[in-house]
């Protein structure tokens, strides 16, 4: 289906990444937002609070981030497309209920505008150290989908994608911005509503007495009922059978949890997104994402000027990770250089997939600012010298 024009501000706007995320959400049909103020994400909530009354959305500022994530899960079961936005300390508080959204297979979107951590860290300054938390932060086994925009335009585009994937796979999806992308103001082109594809909710059409909330087909995603349709269904955060009833047994755990993981893994090729440049003859491939990808470009240009054959793999979706492509490229290059504003997160993921077929080097940054391109260049230079 196409986007509802009422929520689409078609035209060319100048927006920061936070506000572009808000516009993306409204364009994607988000009509329930619960949030709690936290730097550097608050501009998103502020714009939603301003825009929602005119488009029929409900904005509520909750008492904390735990309430915010739980309210958007509840609202999704009431039929709404829902989002919350936060940053480091808030995303840590949300982790338990991201697990609830996973377990109840609830479509919803969580934007995390990353700042420096740990703890209160650097509230107004950039970080990219929540990448592994996005993947593993809630307890138990699960898979996650996460996008990493490098510009306000992508914040808009990827937020729409996040809503669509949340519906397609009935899962929470994370938009992992960073403070730089969240606060940089750039041109954002919002297309006409009838060019924006919106994934409809997978509502069940089963007979009332035959509906099984967690029965599934080939794509492993069950059809959903929402409250008030008359199905009188039950869902629980406990391990549950296809009726949605709790069953604490090894058998039921094995029936449920591997499918929750497989519905993402089996469909990973549909979700994975990356840009690849100049990898054909590359000795070194830079892997980066978010604001660091843009800084990396300057270092890559510098290296190319000096005659180093550098390719670029820019992650648009971070999770699921493009394991196959990273493994393939590892066979023909000397080294990977991973550029990220943390002390090694995607670095380990690249190293795992390269599996010793090439070197993996890290250009780290502890947070609070972006890399000096010279520093990245030095690591690229080192990578080119690998025998």
């Amino acid at each position, binding site marked *: 289906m196409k986007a509802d024009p*009422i929520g689409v501000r078609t035209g060319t706007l100048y927006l920061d990444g936070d506000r572009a995320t808000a516009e993306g959400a409204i364009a994607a049909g988000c*009509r*329930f937002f*619960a949030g709690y103020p936290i730097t550097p994400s608050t501009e998103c909530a502020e714009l939603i609070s301003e825009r929602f*009354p*005119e*488009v*029929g959305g*409900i904005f*509520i500022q*909750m*008492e*904390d981030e*735990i*309430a*915010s994530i*739980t*309210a*958007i*899960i*509840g*609202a*999704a*079961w*009431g*039929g*709404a497309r*829902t989002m919350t936005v936060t940053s480091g300390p808030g995303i840590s508080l949300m982790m*338990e*209920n991201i697990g*609830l959204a996973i377990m*109840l297979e609830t479509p919803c979107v969580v934007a995390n505008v990353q700042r420096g951590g740990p703890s209160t860290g650097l509230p107004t300054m950039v970080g990219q150290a929540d990448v592994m938390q996005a993947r593993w932060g809630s307890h138990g086994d699960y898979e996650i989908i996460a996008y990493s925009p490098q510009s306000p335009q992508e914040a808009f585009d990827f937020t729409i994608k996040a809503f669509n994937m949340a519906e397609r796979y009935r899962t929470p999806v994370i938009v992992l911005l960073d403070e730089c992308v969240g606060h940089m103001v750039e041109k954002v082109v919002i297309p006409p509503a009838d060019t924006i594809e919106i994934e409809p909710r997978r509502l069940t059409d089963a007979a009332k007495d035959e509906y099984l909330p967690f029965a599934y087909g080939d794509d492993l995603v069950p059809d959903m*009922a*929402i*409250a*008030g*349709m*008359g*199905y*009188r*269904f*039950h*869902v*629980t*955060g*406990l391990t549950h059978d296809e*009726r949605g*009833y*709790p069953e604490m047994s090894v058998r039921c755990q094995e029936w449920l949890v591997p499918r929750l993981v497989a519905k993402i893994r089996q469909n990973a090729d549909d979700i994975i997104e990356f840009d690849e440049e100049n990898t054909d003859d590359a000795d070194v491939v830079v892997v980066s994402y978010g604001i660091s990808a843009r800084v990396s470009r300057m270092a890559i240009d510098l290296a190319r000027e000096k005659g180093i054959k550098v390719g670029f793999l820019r992650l648009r979706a971070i999770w699921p990770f493009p394991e196959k492509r990273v493994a393939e490229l590892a066979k023909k290059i000397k080294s990977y250089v991973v550029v990220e504003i943390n002390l090694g997160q995607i670095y380990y993921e690249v190293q795992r997939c390269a599996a010793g077929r090439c070197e993996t080097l890290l250009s780290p940054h502890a947070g609070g600012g972006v890399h000096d391109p010279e520093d990245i260049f030095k690591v690229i230079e080192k990578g080119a010298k690998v025998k």
Partner: protein
Amino acid sequence: MSPKGVPEAVIAAVSSEEHPIAPFLRMDRMPHIWCSTCGIGTAVKALVAAFEKLETDLDKVSIVSGIGCTGRVAGYVRLDSFHTTHGRPIPFATGLKLANSELTVIVFSGDGDLSAIGGNHFIHAARRNMDLKVICVNNFIYGMTGGQAAPTTPLTAVTSTTPYGNAEPPFNLCHLAAACGANYVARWTALHVRRLTKAFAEILVKPGFCFVEVITPCSTLYARKNRLGTGLDIMKYYHDNTVIEHGAEPADTDIVFGGPIICGKFVDRDRPTWLEYQDQHLGEVLGDKYYRGKVLQGAGER
């Protein structure tokens, strides 16, 4: 032949193969996990009786529970039912209700879930006068995890984490709800089935944050540790020690170990709900630009 003095209808009900409230329950989930003489089942029965009394359209009722013994209620009633995380049924229910305001949303959970880990959500939902029907089964203890102290445990009561007696003052949940702005506040015990049913019937049709505290026995843990006797002894205690005082000042209804239990409807007022206030205020400020206002007006004109 009927036993002397027992009405035929009662005989018919108790001798029927199907439990009278079976159509409201997920019978394929029986037997339930609750101990004998637990008061949670009584509270569920009273809720069902209220549905019957009002002839509620149950397709439009959702029930949300947290974690704990009472948290299991959502799993046993045949409604759209959500068993959420510990302490979070109120924010979950808030989202559910605001996404579809046609729904009647009941939060049915325990004292630990709603007032300890979920205490912050409780006070803010009451402050907002969110249109939720909050039923709190208060057995003064964490039952599911083995009888630990709760924010409701009376001073001096023995629990598995206060083996020498509780030295922390408890919350008076009715006082808390009333002070925060709830539209309706009442307390009954598991003995007061008819009054409880009446209270549930009232809150099901009353807008705003409605709170009913149900004092119940936990004979397996609380009563055993405090030598309060069997479930029947506790019912006798409720019978002998309940003081019904409608309109009592909630601040004066504290529960003291071994003392009287003040029950009744303490608050019944009509503050606008969260959504009513939003619609009114945003409608005034934004006029025709307020989308929900146009929709609501359209619905009225039809």
